[in-house]
């Protein structure tokens, strides 16, 4: 019944058929999510072979018979491992970035995490625009900067903690460290206190 309801919803929203996204064994797939883990075995807690970034490509070897949401791939350097299903896409993500010097920079996806190239605050022109208008607009500039600081503090570590507590898919890994994984901390992310799951 649940699957039927889901089907009805997707139909209502016009979500394309899965076949439209299909890839065949041996095809290349794109990594779509930040901090995508390639794991030794098809379970979220197993050792990390490598952590990939959006835009990198893997070769698809098929779903794990143990758990069809985990898929065997070979990473760009040829090592085999398992990736969670929704970390992968048949389509490449957009990789627009702004460097600190204000210039757009084409960047190697693997160097993404350490580059700092995505760092950006409220645009300087917009900040001046808000300050010049004064009053509530100037106050809005200050508040947006405050919200940006709070957003920046929501790191992949915090997201992974919340995802684990909420029972969501382990898509964004907390770190880029390879090898054995640390067990996620019990303490909730700030403001994201442990949400009890609803009965389904």
């Amino acid at each position, binding site marked *: 019944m649940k*699957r039927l*309801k*889901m089907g009805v*919803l997707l139909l*209502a*929203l*016009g*979500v394309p*058929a*899965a*076949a439209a996204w*299909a*890839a*065949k064994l041996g095809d290349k797939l794109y990594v779509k*999510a*930040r*901090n995508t883990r390639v794991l030794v075995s098809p379970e979220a807690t197993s050792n990390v072979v490598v952590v990939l970034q959006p835009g990198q490509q893997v070769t698809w070897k*098929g779903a794990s018979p143990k758990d*069809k949401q985990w898929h065997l791939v070979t990473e760009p350097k040829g090592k085999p491992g398992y990736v969670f*299903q*929704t*970390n992968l*896409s048949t389509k490449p*993500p*957009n990789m627009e*970035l*702004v460097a600190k010097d204000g210039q*757009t920079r084409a960047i190697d996806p693997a160097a993404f995490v350490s580059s700092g190239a995505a760092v*950006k605050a*409220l*645009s300087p*022109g*917009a900040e001046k*625009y*808000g300050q010049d208008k004064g009053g509530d*607009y100037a106050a*809005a500039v200050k*508040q*947006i900067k*405050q*919200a*940006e600081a*709070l*957003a920046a503090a*929501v790191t992949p570590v915090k*997201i992974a903690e919340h*995802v684990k507590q*909420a*029972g*969501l*898919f382990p*898509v*964004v890994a907390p770190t880029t460290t390879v090898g054995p994984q640390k067990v996620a901390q019990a303490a*909730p992310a700030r*403001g*994201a206190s442990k*949400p009890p*799951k*609803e009965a*389904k």
Partner: protein
Amino acid sequence: MRSHLKVAAAVGLGLGLTSCASLTKGLKAAKLGGDADRLVAVSENTQKCDKLGAEPAIQEEYALGSALAIQWVQRGGGLMLATATDQQLTTYVNTVGRNLAMQSPRPTLQWTFGVLNDTRNFNGLSAPGGYVFVTRKLLQGVDNEGQLAGVLAHEIAHIVLKHALHQYASVKVSSCKGAVVGNALVSAAAGRLLSASDRDGKLDLDSDTGLLADLTEKTVELAGKGHRKEEELEADRLAVELMLGAGYDPEAYRQLIAKTPDGGGFFANHPKRDERTKQISKVVLAQKAGADTFAELSTDSLQTPALPASFAAVKATGVAKDAK
């Protein structure tokens, strides 16, 4: 005489690009001089204006998006950040939102989520560059994290699909053409638009606050009319994909849509529920991939997490109390 020129230019514009280009070429070749030469110049400049319809560079998107974000925050009564509880709530909304955004087709934008103090409008808003806002009234109406994720995913989708940037591009082109047909550089900003149309159509808004202000305020005016229905449906489709990718049950989002009256707030320009119902019988969905094919989405193990304790403050009807 000038009015004749304006009429001729307007007629030329009305003929469309191909015929306009042909007309211009013919007039130029005829070397008639006088008004005909001015008409040729107007026509050529009008065609150049179309370059401004090109997709803007990321710096231009960030500048416009930041300025629009300032407008949305000002109009929404500011952001809920005054107390520690408010800040916890903002952190929670960013946790849910950034998890979705980091899996979106634009994972490298600097995504920022905020809660507007607005207690009258049930609304979600977005601005290019990765700014997403929800009103306090909307948060008061969500029953679980799945519903919140659905609304955030819908706004993320508008940014990913660059819907506001399409409105902005049309503002740039029409402003440029307006200046050309008026046969005068009606403002310094219009002059700089014309100048950009001589190049690649890209604008450095960070070094030209006057032009940024002019284009932002015109885009706000257009954005106030909402996105097209097709764009809203497109955003809904991507929202459901984002929810499935993260492990949320999109049924929660459907329930939120179902309990909201047609034509109000967040749903003011959205397709009516009846329209969606009609689509159900028209589309055939095949979700299961074969053993040797890869499918990006799964409907297994989906969740509808409950809201955290920090939500109690927003559910209260009065001003949020500081939990310190």
